[in-house]
């Protein structure tokens, strides 16, 4: 009975949440490499959040939209390249998965904030990394200071932060958070025919807040905040990886 089912039928049967069309569409368009730029512009203009993020990246010195010298998606693509839009589109499912995880598993509202407005990380923090390789290659980095990580782990496990004395337990929660985010991210890539495999997550204490950029790729840096915690997520990806 399930043999002939297509994805839409299965998606309905299993009660999947609808996918973000603009991210999938943009990923597919850019992955093709020969796409018409006008088509890419049209897709970005239909998604105000994506458009805003692209313009913010294209105007790195501006403190707000009134200071933007680059005001249109076309200009932003000319300045930053289509690859930049691709990394932004790819990071959208990641950001949504993190926000949804906060809502469902932590019962807290999480919002994406301007990275420049976030409080800087403490020197030593928890760093989770997952690499991916295939038609697209790169890595996702998740950073939290220890207090934030302890709070997040305690909320997910239904414990008091004071009970979370075991760093390995906190690491496991952070690793799973990373797994959930990156699984959603990978699904979007695979749907755009950018098949890739995830490496196992690695979570460790680190003092380095720089994320290495994958050769030939771009970097998107995001920050998220709840009332008690801050989370930093960096994505680096080369959407035209030659290794497959």
């Amino acid at each position, binding site marked *: 009975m399930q043999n002939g089912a297509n994805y839409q039928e*299965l998606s309905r049967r299993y009660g999947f949440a609808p996918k973000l069309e603009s991210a999938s569409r943009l990923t597919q368009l850019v992955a093709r490499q020969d796409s018409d730029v006008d088509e890419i512009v049209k897709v970005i203009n239909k998604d105000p959040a994506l458009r805003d993020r692209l313009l913010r990246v294209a105007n790195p010195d501006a403190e707000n939209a009134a200071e933007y010298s680059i005001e249109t998606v076309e200009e932003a693509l000319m300045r930053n390249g289509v690859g930049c839009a691709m990394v932004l589109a790819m990071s959208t499912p990641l950001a949504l998965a993190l926000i949804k995880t906060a809502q469902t598993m932590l019962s807290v509202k999480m919002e994406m904030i301007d990275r420049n407005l976030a409080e800087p990380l403490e020197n030593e923090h928890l760093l989770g990394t997952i690499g991916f390789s295939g038609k697209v290659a790169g890595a996702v980095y998740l950073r939290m200071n220890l207090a934030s990580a302890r709070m997040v782990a305690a909320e997910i*496990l239904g414990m008091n932060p004071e009970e979370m004395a075991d760093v390995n337990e906190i690491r496991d929660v952070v690793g799973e958070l990373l797994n959930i985010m*990156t699984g959603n991210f*990978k699904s*979007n890539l*695979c749907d755009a025919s950018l098949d890739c495999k995830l490496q196992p997550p690695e979570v460790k204490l680190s003092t380095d807040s720089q994320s290495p950029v994958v050769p030939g790729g771009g970097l998107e840096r995001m920050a998220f905040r709840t009332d008690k915690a801050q989370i930093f997520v960096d994505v680096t990806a080369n959407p035209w990886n030659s290794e497959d």
Partner: protein
Amino acid sequence: MASKILSVDDSRTIRLIVGRALRPYDCVLCEAGNGEEGLAVAAREKPDLILLDVTMPVMDGVTMLTKLKEDPALKTIPVIMLTAESGRDNVIHIARLGVRDYLVKPFKEDQLIEKLSRNLTLQKREAAPVAPAPAPAPAAAPQA
């Protein structure tokens, strides 16, 4: 009779969340950290249902599911996928192998219970009998 559920996930966090969701119900939870262990526990414990992750070390969930469906003694055990993988091709492939349901992470505990209830009879645990209140201690004899 208590239902027996096998949770196969490399994340202890997920196994703890599953255990917490099932705490109010009369069921036995078995655990495995990868597909290879999952097959061994399934053969030994004969669970009523398996919750299965996809991305795991040693043996992934798709390989475990394939082997499970090839084993005459285990192939009828219902499987619910519990994974962050929701890519079109993966979902179609997994559905073809034969799963009862599919829950994408992140998930709410209520969603998990709802999916399990469609495939199992989950009965609430009986509340522990309330112990009779102890008789009040006799008043201390006034000291002379």
